[in-house]
Each structure stands twice: as C-alpha cells, then as structure tokens.
C-alpha cells in the first residue's frame, strides 16, 4: 500500500526530493518506515530529525495506514 513521505528544508536538500511515495505492508509502525528511509539516505542521520504522521508530531509508535502522510524534517527554525 502506498504512503507519502515529505521532506522540507535541509532534509529536502539531503534527499534531493520534496516527496517520495513508499509502498509498505499494512500495519507497520512509523518508526520502521523512518528508520528505513534514514538507512536509504544516510546523510539524514547527520541532522537532528523530527517526524510527523498526518501533520502531527510523531512518536514513532503510530501504525501507518494506506495513504498516510509522513514527514521527516530538522528542528524548526521559523520566527
């Protein structure tokens, strides 16, 4: 099943992508998907990362469903 993962700022620069669509098996936890992407783009690990699932900060324990929107980004710097 497809899910979407978004990147912003530094994580977008590092991955060279704004968004990737990942095909996963149903019932995975967010943490597994994030870890898999960090393994795929090891430069992400250089940064202090924050994660979200469906536009809410994520603990990693969230169970991911079809069409969910995940995001990986660095500590925010607005203001």
């Amino acid at each position, binding site marked *: 099943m497809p899910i979407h993962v978004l990147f912003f700022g*530094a994580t977008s620069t590092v991955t060279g992508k704004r968004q990737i669509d990942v095909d996963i098996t149903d019932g995975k936890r967010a943490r597994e998907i994030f870890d898999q992407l960090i393994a795929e783009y090891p430069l992400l690990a250089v940064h202090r990362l924050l994660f979200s699932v469906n536009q809410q900060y994520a603990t990693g324990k969230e169970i991911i469903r079809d069409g969910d929107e995940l995001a990986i980004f660095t500590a925010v710097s*607005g*203001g």
Partner: protein
Amino acid sequence: MSALDFLELTIEPIDINSVARRVVPPECGATVTLDGYVRQFTKGRETLHLFYEAYEPMALKEMEKLIKAAKEQFEVSNIGIVHRLGKLEIGETSVVISVTSPHRKAAFAACEWLIRELKRSVPIWKKEVYADGEVWVEGET
C-alpha cells in the same frame, strides 16, 4: 479560536500595524506585538537574504494549537500570528505576533510565550543566504 483570532502564512510583505489592529476588541486597550525580521548580521556573518519554507498545513495546525494553549494559560482576548514565507530581504518582517488583553501583563507574558513556542514547534525553516553559500538553519528543539 474567537472571531478575532487569526493565523496566516503569507508570501506577501507583512504590515505590523494591520496585524496589531485586527486583534483589537472594543473592550481592550493595549496590544503587545512581537515582530521578527531579517537580520543583516548573524554571529558577524553578513546575510544577503533569507528564504522561509513551511510544511504549510501542519504549520497552520501548530499555530492554531499555540493560540488555543495561550488562551488557556493567559488571560488574553485575542491573538494574531502571521508568518512570512519565501524570499525575504534584509529588514523585512518574518513574523508578527499580536496579543490583546484586558491587562497588559498577560499580553506581554502570552506574546513572549508564543514566540518561544512558535520557534520550537511550528514546522517552518529558515535558509540564510550568504555571499559564499547558504545554510538551512536548524533549531534547538
């Protein structure tokens, strides 16, 4: 959220005056406004311009949470938050937070709390562009 609360992301220049005025209810008499703007120098290095990017739908949700939380914690009437996105020149306003309250003290406290929390939790990132490169600034978490 009351009818006078608001939150916006905009790529247009921000007019502080209009933000401060939009939160004013008839029974209040003072507004406290924080405005942030593009610094020319950060740690001695000259910035040519800035670029702000947001995870827009999540940023709006987080800003709304902040307004709700501030109104629970502080005795304030209305809160307005506007954050600029895109390219900003030196001196341009990046963020304005205006708070009205029956008593000044609460407006000062709420405004100070809001800018601190906004910098911690609202998914917006700043890229500083220098003569010799550019850097995505990372927050403190």
